[in-house]
C-alpha cells in the first residue's frame, strides 16, 4: 500500500513538473489573456446584454468572461502554473546548484573520448609540466580549473559560466514569486470573501455613509485599488472599488483633503499636467501632511499610494436663463443650479426634471482657421431633461457663440442616448451678441393672431388665388406656420405628400414654401422693427443670413425635445480631483521577482555553461609517453563552443609541439 502511495505521488510530481504541462499552461494562459483583450472587460452589465442578448449574456457571465482575470478558472490556471513551476524547481534546482559547483572530476575517459569536441595527443612532456600548461590554458579562456589525482591518471577539470544554472533557478523562482505576489494584489481575496458571503457589492448609487456594512471593507483589507473623486475643498475618508456590477467601499485610516486641482495646458491647447494639492489628516499624527501630486508623481503614504488618476466637475454653480421654445408670450426665467443637482420644474403644465451632469471650463476643438490646429471655444455644460414618463434626452450647451462659416451661433447638442453623437441646434447670435432676437422671432411666430393678421394683409396684397376666400387663406397660412413650427419645412413637405396627388406636389410645395417664407419674412421684419432698427434701406446681408439661420433653427426645434433653451449666463467653477489609491503588499514579492527574472534571463543566455577536461595518463612507463585527452562539453550554444574548443585545441597543439 505504502509503495503504491509513493508511486502515485511520484507520478503526480512527474506530471506536475512535466514540460508538457508547463507548455499547456503557458498556452492556456495566452488564450485566456487574448479573450480578455478581445472582449472589453468590466463594462456595465446592460452593455453586455445589448451586445450578446439575454441568453449568451448569461452564458458568458457564468464563464466569468466579463472579468476574465479574476475568474475562478483563470486563477486556477495561474495556480497550476505556480505549482508546475515550483515542482520543476524542486526537481531540478538542487541538481542545477550542485552542477554549478561541481567540476565533474569523476568523469570517465571513455566519456571524454566519445564527445564530439575531443582530441587526443601523445607527448613526451612531463606530467607536471602538462598539468601546469593545461591549467594555464583553461584559465586563459576564463575557465576555473581543478586538478584531480586519479588512480593512474590525472585530470584537469575546467568550468565556466556557472551562472546559466543560477539563471535557471532565478527565472523560475521569479515566476513563482511574481504570480504569488500578483495573486495577493489581484482581487482573488475579495472573490473568496464574496463566495463565503462576507461581502457583497452595492449596486445602488447612494452616499458612501449609507452603504451597508456588507459592502464595506475595513482597514484589515491590505490589498486593494480603488478610486474616489474629491471636490476642491472637500475631504474623503473612503474610496470605491469597482466590483462586478457594483462597488465596494474601502475605509481609510486617514482623511484626504483636496485643496486645489489644476490643469495646465500647452499653448496648442492640449493638457500638459494634472496636479492636486493634497492634505492628509491622520488621527495618528499630530501634524497634517501637505503634498502636491501629479501624473507620474504619486504620494506614497503609510504604504498607501495616492495617484492623480482623473478629474471631473466637483459641483460647479451655474446661473442659467431658461428661454421658452413653445407657446406664445413667456418671459425668460433665471435658474440657479449646480452640477450634480436635480431640479424639478413645471413647464407649460408638464413636469420636468433638469439634471446637470457636467461643466467644462475649456473645450479644445479643432480650429477652423488655417494655421491653428486647436481652439478653445470656452465653457459648456451638459444636462438631461427628464419628462414625466422618466424618458430623458441629453444636452450639451456652449456658453459662448461659436463661429461657423462666417457667422456666430450658440450651440446646443442633443442626443437620445450616450451611444449617439450629439446633433446640434445652431441658434444664431444677434447684433448684441445674444440670443434675444432669435427668441423674439420665435415668440412672434407663436403669436397666432398676429400671423393671421399678416396673412390677411399678404392675401389682399398679392394676386388672389381662385376659389379661396381670404379667411380660408389666412387659416391655411396659420396651419402652414404651425406645421413649420413643429417640424420645419420637412413637415410641410410630408403634409403635401399625403394630401396632394403626386403630379402636382412639386408645384404645391413651391407655392407653400414661397408663401411661408414671405410670412416668416414679415414676422422677422416686425421683430427688427420692434428692436428699433431702421429698415428704410432694406435688410443688410448679415440680417438676411440671420433670418436664414434662424428659420433653419426654428424648423429643428420640433426635434429638439426640450420645451426650454438653457443659456449659461454665469458660473462658479469647482473641480474634483479623481484620486486612485492603492495598496499592493504583493509587490514586495513581485519586485524582487522581477529583479531575479531579469538577472536570471540574462545569465541564462549570456553565461552559458561550458566544461573542458584534460586527461593525462602514461601510455608506457618506459618510454615516458603520456596520453593527453582534451575534451569539452556545452549544454547550449554548441556551435560557439566548437569554435572555442578549436582555439583551445590549437593552443595545446602549439604548446605540445614546441
Amino acid at each position, binding site marked *: 500500500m505504502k509503495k503504491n502511495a509513493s508511486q502515485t505521488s511520484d507520478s503526480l510530481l512527474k506530471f506536475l513538473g512535466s*514540460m508538457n504541462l508547463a507548455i499547456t499552461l503557458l498556452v492556456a494562459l495566452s488564450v485566456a*489573456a*487574448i479573450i480578455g*483583450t478581445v472582449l472589453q472587460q468590466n463594462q456595465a452589465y446592460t452593455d453586455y446584454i445589448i451586445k450578446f442578448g439575454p441568453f449568451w449574456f448569461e452564458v458568458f457571465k457564468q464563464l466569468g468572461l466579463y472579468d476574465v482575470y479574476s475568474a475562478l478558472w483563470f486563477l486556477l490556471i495561474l495556480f497550476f502554473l505556480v505549482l508546475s513551476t515550483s515542482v520543476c524547481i524542486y526537481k531540478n534546482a538542487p541538481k542545477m546548484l550542485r552542477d554549478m559547483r561541481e567540476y565533474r572530476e569523476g568523469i570517465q575517459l571513455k566519456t571524454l573520448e566519445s564527445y564530439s569536441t575531443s582530441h587526443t595527443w601523445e607527448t613526451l612532456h612531463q606530467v607536471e609540466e602538462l598539468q601546469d600548461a593545461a591549467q594555464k590554458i583553461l584559465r*586563459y579562456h576564463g575557465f576555473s580549473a581543478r586538478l584531480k589525482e586519479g588512480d593512474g591518471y590525472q585530470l584537469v577539470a575546467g568550468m565556466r559560466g556557472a551562472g546559466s544554472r543560477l539563471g535557471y533557478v532565478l527565472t523560475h523562482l521569479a515566476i513563482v514569486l511574481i504570480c504569488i505576489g500578483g495573486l495577493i494584489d489581484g482581487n482573488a481575496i475579495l472573490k473568496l470573501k464574496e463566495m463565503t458571503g462576507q461581502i457583497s457589492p452595492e449596486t445602488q448609487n447612494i452616499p458612501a455613509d449609507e452603504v451597508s456594512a456588507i459592502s464595506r471593507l475595513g482597514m484589515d483589507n491590505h490589498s486593494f485599488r480603488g478610486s474616489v473623486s474629491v471636490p476642491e475643498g472637500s475631504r474623503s475618508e473612503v474610496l470605491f472599488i469597482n466590483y462586478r456590477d457594483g462597488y465596494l467601499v474601502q475605509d481609510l485610516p486617514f482623511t484626504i483633503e483636496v485643496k486645489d486641482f489644476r490643469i495646465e495646458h500647452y499653448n496648442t491647447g*492640449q493638457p500638459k499636467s494634472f496636479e492636486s494639492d493634497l492634505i492628509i489628516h491622520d488621527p495618528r499624527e499630530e501634524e497634517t501632511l501637505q503634498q502636491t501630486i501629479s*501624473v*507620474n508623481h*504619486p504620494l506614497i503614504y503609510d504604504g498607501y499610494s495616492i495617484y492623480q488618476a482623473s478629474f471631473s466637475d466637483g459641483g460647479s454653480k451655474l446661473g442659467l436663463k431658461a428661454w421658452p421654445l413653445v407657446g406664445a408670450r413667456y418671459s425668460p426665467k433665471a435658474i440657479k443650479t449646480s452640477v450634480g443637482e436635480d431640479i424639478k420644474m413645471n413647464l407649460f403644465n408638464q413636469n420636468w426634471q433638469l439634471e446637470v451632469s457636467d461643466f467644462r471650463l475649456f473645450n479644445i476643438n479643432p480650429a477652423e482657421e488655417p494655421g491653428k490646429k486647436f481652439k478653445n471655444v470656452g465653457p459648456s455644460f451638459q444636462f438631461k431633461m427628464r419628462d414625466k414618463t422618466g424618458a430623458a434626452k441629453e444636452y450639451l450647451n456652449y456658453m459662448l457663440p461659436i463661429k461657423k462659416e462666417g457667422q456666430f451661433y450658440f450651440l446646443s447638442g442633443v442626443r437620445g442616448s450616450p451611444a449617439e453623437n450629439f446633433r446640434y441646434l445652431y441658434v444664431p447670435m444677434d447684433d448684441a451678441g445674444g440670443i434675444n432676437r432669435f427668441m423674439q422671432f420665435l415668440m412672434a411666430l407663436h403669436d397666432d393672431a398676429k400671423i393671421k393678421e399678416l396673412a390677411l394683409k399678404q392675401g389682399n396684397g398679392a394676386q388672389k388665388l381662385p376659389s379661396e376666400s381670404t379667411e380660408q387663406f389666412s387659416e391655411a397660412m396659420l396651419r402652414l406656420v404651425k406645421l413649420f413650427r413643429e417640424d420645419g419645412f420637412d413637415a410641410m413637405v410630408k403634409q403635401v405628400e399625403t394630401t396632394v396627388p403626386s403630379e402636382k406636389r412639386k408645384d404645391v410645395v413651391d407655392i407653400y414654401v414661397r408663401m411661408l417664407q414671405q410670412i416668416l419674412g414679415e414676422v422677422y421684419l416686425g421683430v427688427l422693427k420692434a428692436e428699433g432698427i431702421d429698415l428704410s434701406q432694406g435688410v443688410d446681408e448679415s440680417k438676411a443670413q440671420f433670418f436664414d439661420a434662424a428659420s433653419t433653427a426654428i424648423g429643428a426645434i420640433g426635434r429638439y425635445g426640450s420645451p426650454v433653451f438653457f443659456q449659461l449666463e454665469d458660473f462658479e467653477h469647482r473641480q474634483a480631483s479623481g484620486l486612485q489609491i492603492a495598496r499592493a503588499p504583493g509587490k514586495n514579492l513581485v519586485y524582487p521577482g522581477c529583479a531575479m527574472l531579469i538577472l536570471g534571463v540574462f545569465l541564462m543566455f549570456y553565461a552559458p555553461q561550458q566544461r573542458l577536461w584534460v586527461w593525462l595518463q602514461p601510455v608506457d612507463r618506459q618510454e615516458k609517453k603520456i596520453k593527453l585527452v582534451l575534451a569539452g562539453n556545452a549544454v547550449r550554444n554548441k556551435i560557439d563552443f566548437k569554435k572555442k574548443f578549436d582555439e583551445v585545441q590549437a593552443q595545446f597543439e602549439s604548446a605540445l609541439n614546441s
Partner: protein
Amino acid sequence: MNTMNLELDQQSFFKKLSLFDWLWAGLVLVGTVFAYQKYASLMDAYEKGILVSAGITLIFFGWNWKTIRGLSIAVFLLSIFGISRYITGLEDADADFFLRFLVSSQSSIMWMSALYVLATVTYFIALISRSEFAGKVASAMTWSATTMGLVGLMVRWRESYLVGLDVGHIPVSNLYEVFILFSIITALIYLFYENKYKTRALGGFVMLIIAAAVAFLLWYAFERQADEIQPLVPALKSYWMKIHVPANFIGYGAFALAAMVAVAYLMREKAKQKKRTNGIMATLPPLEILDDLMYKSIALGFSFFTLATILGALWAAEAWGGYWSWDPKETWALIVWLNYAAWLHMRLTKGWRGKPMAVWAIIGLFVTLFAFLGVNMFLSGLHSYGEL
C-alpha cells in the same frame, strides 16, 4: 627531454584594449561629462543616471564592436551640424540648404527611408548575382541609412525643443518615432550578425521587414501627417520612457530578425529537400547556422523584452497606480512573452530544432506585430497614444 613553450599573453580584459579603445573611451567620457555639466541642472536624478549609463554602455559597445564607433562619430558630427543650422527657429528647415536637403529630421528620415529600400534591393541583387561588391554596397547603404535615421532622431529631439521649451522630449513617444527606432535597431542587430557570421546572404530577407516598416512610415507621414511633433500627454512625461521604449524595440527588432531568418531557413530547407544545390538558396548559410542565429536572436529579443515589460510594469505602478492592470497592451506583451517563453522551452529542454521552430518564429512575429500595432488599431486601453 624538451621543455614546453607556452606563450599565453595572460592579460586582463583592460590590458587587451588598444590605444584606440582608450581614445574611444576618453572621447565618450568627455562627451558625457560635457553633457552632464551643461544639462545636469535640467535633469532629475534618474535622468542623470540614464545619461551616465548611456555613456558607459556606449564605451563598452564601442570596445566590443568597433564599427559602432564610426557610426557614433558620424551621427554625432552630422547631428551637431544639423542642430547648429537652426538659428532663428524651426522655419530654418525650409530656408537653409543643408537642413532642407540633408540634416533636418524630415530630410534625414527621408534619406534613411530611401537608403533602407535601396539596401534591400541591393542585398537581393548581391544574393542573386553572387556579387561580393554588390553585397558590400548593400552593407554600406544599410550603415548609411542607420546613420541618417539616428541623425533624424537626434535632430528631431532638438526640433521638439524648438517647437516649445515645454514640448521638447525624446523622440520615442509616438508610433511614427518608434517606427524609425524599430528600423534602426533591427538594422543594427542584423549588421552585428552580418559582421559576426561573415555573410551578407541574409541581408535581403531582414531588410524586407525594414522596408515594410519604412513603407508604413512614409504612408503614416504623408497620409496622416504623423511626422508633426506633438507635445506629450501627462502620462508619458517620465524618465521611464527613455528606457522602457528602447528596451522594447530591441526586443521587437530581434524578434523581427528571428522571423526573417526563419523565412530564409525555410527556403534553404526547401532547396535542400529538392536537392537544388546550385540554386540561389544554396548560397545562404548552412541550416544549422540559420537555426543558431534564429535562437540567438530570439534569446536576445526575449531578454530585452523581459526587461522592457518589467520596466513598463514599474512605470505603470508610478503612472497608473498599479504595476499590472490587464490593459490590452500589457496583456499582449504578456502573450508575446509567453509565446517566446514556450518557444525557448521547446528548444532548450525538448531539443526541438529546424522547421517547426522556424514556422513558430514566423508566427511569433505576427503575435508581436499585433502587440505592437494591432492593439493600438483594434483595442482600446491605457496605451492609447500612437493611434492610427
